[in-house]
Every structure is written in C-alpha cells, then in structure tokens.
C-alpha cells in the first residue's frame, strides 16, 4: 500500500463516494455557522422544504456582525440586528446549538470551537468562513466554504469537494526572542506570496512548529488561507492532548484516554510524499509587518519596502496602486512611522496567550496619546481569563479599554471601523484595501509588535522592549 500523509488519511476516511472525474462526496464531522453566511442557506432549506439532516453536528455563534460595546442592548444597526435574529430563529427552528450574542460562552467561531472541545483531532470541519483553517492546529481537515456549501452540509452533512494537492512546510531551528507564531506565518506568506499555496492543503511540521502552544499553532493554521491554501494542519501530539485534557467536558467523548490513543495514530507515514515540500529556518525570522494591501506584502520590521515586486524589474501596476493606497513609497523604512490605531483581537490573535503577550509590553507603561486602541477578546471565556489573571486591570491602568468579544475591526462589519486614511497596526489577518473600514490602512503584525506601537505611537521593533526586560531581570 502507498504511504499516506496525515491529510490523505483523514480525507480518505471521510469519502462517502468518489465520483469519477468529479469531486468527492466528503462527510463532515463538525459544521460551524455564524450569522453572516448562513441565512441564505437556511432560506434554501425552506424553499426545498427539507430539514437539517444532523442538527447535532452543527454549532452556531454570532460574531461577525455584533457590537463590542453594550452587547446587552438591542443592536442599533437594523440590518445587523435582523441578521442576528434570523440566526436565533433558524437555530431554534432546526434544533441547532447556539452560542449567540449574550450567551456566556459566546465568541468568535474559531475561538470558541476549540476552547469548548468541539474541534477534535481527525475530524473534517467546515464553516462559511475562510479562517476555518484555524482548526487544523488540532490535526483536522478544516476549511472555509461558501453559503451554497453551507446549505449542502445542513441538508446532507456532506460536501462535494475535489481533493486538493498536498504541501508540507517544515520549520526547523529556534525562534528568537520577540518572534511569535504570527511572525512565522507572516514570514512564510511573504516568502511564497498570497497565492503561493493555492490549490494545496498545507501540513506544518518541524521542531519550530512542535515546540509551539496550541494557541500559537492556531494562529499559523488560521493564516493558511492568506497564502491561498485550502487549509493547513499540524499533526496532534502531547501538546494537543494536554490542551484537550484541560477542557472540563468534551462533547461526545466519554473516555479521553482511549480517544488519545486513537488520535496518536494521526501521523504521516514516514515515507509519505507531498506534492510540494518547502523548508524554512526559524532562526532567520524577525518580527514581521506588512506594508501593502495583501498579506504577501510583508517584511521584517527593520527592513525597507522593496523597490519592486518583480526581482528588480519594473514594479507592477498592482504594486504601485497598493503602496499609493498605503501612502508609502518603494524603498521606505517603516520603523518610526506614526500610526493612529492599534487593534488586538480576531480569530488570528484573540486568544488568552495573545493578550498575555500584549500585556508583557504594556505592563507599567502608558498608551501613547495619539493611539486609539481596540482591545477585543476572542470569546467570553478569554475575557473571563483576562479578568482572572488581572489583565483587564493591567490594561486599564496602561490606558486601554477592553471591549466585549467579536470579530470587530478585523472586518469592520460593525462600528469598529478605522477611519479613512488612518494607519492601524492590527493583529488580524488581512490588510486588504478597506478591510478595516473604507480607506483604512492596515499593517498586520504580532501582538508584541502591536503593543510596542501602542506604547510609542509609532511602528516600533518589539525587541526593544523585550531586551529592556531582560536587562532588568539581570
């Protein structure tokens, strides 16, 4: 028998039927839904007059289109309110478990899924959201789908999907101080471009990956889509099992030990072959920042913006348009550039570890006067943890206000918009034109880099603060 990758093993064991020359009929173990990409799918079911086939396998939350202030009040925007109400109605009508607005376990879909134990190794997971790749950190096949496919899964618990090609990205070596998993993934994207993994499903491997916490792994898998990949996964290991072991009760799992024994088998065969195999040295990675309008336009924070996007040849119209939008010039250095906003949160960096990292730098310091900060926990649970660890107080005393959970300024569907022309250092995942509001200029970075910028009011190398701390310790 041919040696299989972990991806092959999970995929193949979920194929209900292979269609000759066509996509596979893939069985879905876990379906997450939210208010924005589900209403049209439910309308479809109503028009057909059919039920949700397996309501127990779908989990719902409201996250994209909700305010992050005064959540106990009615949503002011009528269209947004209507969308959230439709979700409530649909979940009730079809018997779907809902962690909606004001539910004590509410939060961003890709934050609450793992923290509540709904994401488990070996699963196939889909959601009408491209950052579903986050769940790959647990050794799952997880990918984003469109609304027609949401309807497909609700109706049949299956999806028609062509099998993507496989890519392995191996990262060996040790990370330097001040370099986080966000920098790792931004580095990879900057090297292979925003479309470098299109058509592939990525497996991340190597010592620099296995040494990471689950939160950090989720950040990496989360941004797989930003290199164009269908998804990204990491084989489960002791770190995974330890994380799952801390969840008070995992739905559907009675004996965690015996499940862990099964999950341990979720590994690549030693001689498995990938369609593409890339290797990077973790020791070469510095804190990263983006300078353009797609996540591939990233560089080390102390670098200069490239002169061209084409190896010294004439810069493309897209490259020039992108820098014009950002108000930058080719060859420019970004260190010291004034900024206006800092956003920490999102399904990329809205977990407890991220708020601890941010706190590490702001502790004992004050927010710069020119900075408006949006501090948005990824879930109620993250918010509770922050409170329990004294982080909310710490943030307050440094001049930061902590909001209520939601997707917030990552996609700016609610009122958390960055104004026209303003610069935001953001821990989210996309620096597209207008992503954080019409005309907003986004610079993607890690929570440490965001914290350094929040304190100085300028683009700042977070290692300046890390070194200082070490000196103090000595």
């Amino acid at each position: 028998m041919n040696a299989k990758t972990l991806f092959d093993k999970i995929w193949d064991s979920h194929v209900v039927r292979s269609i000759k020359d066509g996509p596979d009929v893939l069985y879905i173990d876990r379906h997450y839904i939210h208010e924005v990409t589900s209403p049209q799918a439910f309308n479809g079911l109503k028009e057909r007059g059919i039920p949700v086939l397996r309501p127990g396998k779908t989990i719902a939350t409201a996250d994209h289109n909700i305010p992050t202030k005064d959540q106990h009040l009615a949503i002011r925007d009528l269209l947004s309110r209507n969308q959230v109400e439709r979700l409530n109605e649909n979940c009730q009508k079809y018997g779907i478990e809902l962690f909606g607005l004001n539910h004590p376990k509410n939060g961003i879909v890709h934050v609450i899924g793992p923290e509540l134990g709904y994401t488990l190794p070996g699963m196939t997971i889909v959601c009408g959201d491209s950052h579903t790749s986050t769940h790959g950190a647990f050794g799952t096949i997880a990918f984003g789908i469109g609304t027609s496919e949401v309807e497909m899964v609700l109706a049949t618990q299956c999806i028609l999907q062509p099998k993507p090609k496989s890519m392995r990205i191996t990262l060996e070596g040790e990370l330097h101080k001040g370099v986080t998993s966000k920098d790792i993934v931004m580095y990879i994207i900057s090297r292979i471009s925003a479309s470098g993994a299109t058509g592939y499903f990525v497996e991340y491997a190597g010592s620099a990956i296995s040494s990471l916490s689950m939160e950090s792994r989720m950040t990496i898998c989360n941004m797989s889509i930003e290199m164009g990949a269908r998804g990204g996964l990491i084989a489960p290991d002791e770190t995974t099992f330890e994380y799952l072991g801390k969840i008070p009760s995992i739905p559907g799992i009675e004996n965690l030990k015996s499940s862990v024994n099964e999950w341990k088998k979720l590994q690549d065969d030693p001689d498995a072959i990938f369609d593409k195999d890339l290797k990077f040295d973790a020791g070469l990675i510095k804190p990263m920042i983006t300078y353009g309008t797609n996540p591939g336009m990233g560089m080390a924070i102390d670098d200069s913006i490239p002169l061209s996007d084409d190896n010294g040849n004439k810069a493309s119209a897209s490259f020039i348009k992108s820098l014009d939008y950002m108000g930058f010039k080719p060859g420019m250095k970004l260190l010291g550039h004034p900024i206006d906003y800092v956003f920490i949160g999102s399904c990329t960096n809205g977990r407890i570890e991220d708020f601890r990292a941010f706190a590490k730098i702001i502790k004992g310091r004050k927010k710069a006067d020119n900075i408006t900060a949006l501090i948005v926990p990824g879930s109620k649970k993250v918010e509770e943890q922050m409170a329990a660890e004294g982080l909310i107080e710490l943030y307050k005393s440094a001049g930061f206000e902590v909001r209520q959970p939601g997707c917030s300024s990552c996609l700016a569907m609610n009122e958390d918009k960055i104004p026209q022309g303003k610069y935001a250092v953001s821990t989210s995942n996309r620096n597209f034109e207008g992503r954080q509001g019409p005309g907003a200029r986004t610079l993607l970075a890690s929570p440490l880099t965001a914290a350094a910028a929040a304190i100085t009011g300028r683009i700042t190398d977070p290692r300046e603060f890390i070194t200082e701390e070490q000196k103090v310790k000595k």
Partner: protein
Amino acid sequence: MPKVKFDTLESTCVPLPFENVDTDQIIPARFLSATSRQGFGDNLFRDWRYTKTGEKNSDFVLNNPDFTGKVLVAGKNFGSGSSREHAVWAIFDYGFRAVVSSFFADIFMNNALNNGLLPIVISDDLLKKLHALIQKNPDTKVKIDLEKQTFTIVSTGDSVNFGINPYKKECLLKGLDDIDFLLSMKSLITSYENNKSK
C-alpha cells in the same frame, strides 16, 4: 442554491487588470448584512466604483460606458481572501456570466461554479494579450463554448481550451443542482455513518 444553466456566450468584456483582487474589494463586509441573495450587484466593487462622498468614480471601469458586457476579464489571483459567496452573487447580480483570469482563489472558484458564474482560466500571456486588445478596442468580443470547453477571441481567432471539472460542467450545462444530487445519495450517507459508529 439557484439552478443556472450555461452553454455558450458571446460578449464584449469589462477589463479589471489588477492582481490579487480580493473578495473584500468585490463586496466590502459592510454590505453583507442582507439575508437574501439578491441586490448585491449595486455594491459590486463599491469602494472603487464610488468616491468617499458617494459619487460615481469616473476613473473606474464599471463607470466607463465604453466597456460593457457579460464577461469580466480580471487579473491574476482573482477572488482571494474571504469565503463570502456574496462576492459571486454581486458579480452575477450585476450581469456578468463569466470571469476570465490566469488564476483564481480556490473558494471563489467553487462559489462561482455553484452559482452559474463560469470561471475561465487562460494563460498569463493570453490574458495580457486580451487586456491589450480590450484597451485598444472596447468592442473586442470573446466567445465561450462550455460544451466544447473553448474560449475564443473573436477578432483575432485566438482559441484555447479551458479546464473544468466534468461533474461541474454537466451541472452547468443541464442546470443540475448539487443538493438534489447529494440528497439522492442519502442511503449511502446513512450507511457511511453507521459504519463509522461501529
């Protein structure tokens, strides 16, 4: 899921020669609060099409009366980013029936095929040539034949084959629907579940 048929199409083109056009540009998130599939065309490319003050931006191609047609000729890596199917609904609602590029993002490609919007991949070179022809002569027409899988520039006679999954091709030609197809396999799905739980 609407059942849309596609067989042949001959049309002039609307050129959008930028790379990495993401779905946030196609339809910004602030227009995603609707709960039906209709009406998104009004906000297609909203922030490029209108100025900050809400007037039509005369520099943008959709506001240039020289360029019309049912075929959007895009740049490389079209439809990247968010999985929002609203992007495809907006393009379709505006009146496009096919999008041509040298490279599409995966989710966008699936979404387009699921809504009867035909994504056609041609080589970088041919795409460049097509953009140049359209700029020179906005009446440049292309002809698409799905059955034969051919894409032809009418004036030059350049004709290439394009790829499409045979299953999806059949669905588009006959106006078949994925969910009807999957529902017809319900017993297979149930027996898969039974086997798994053993």
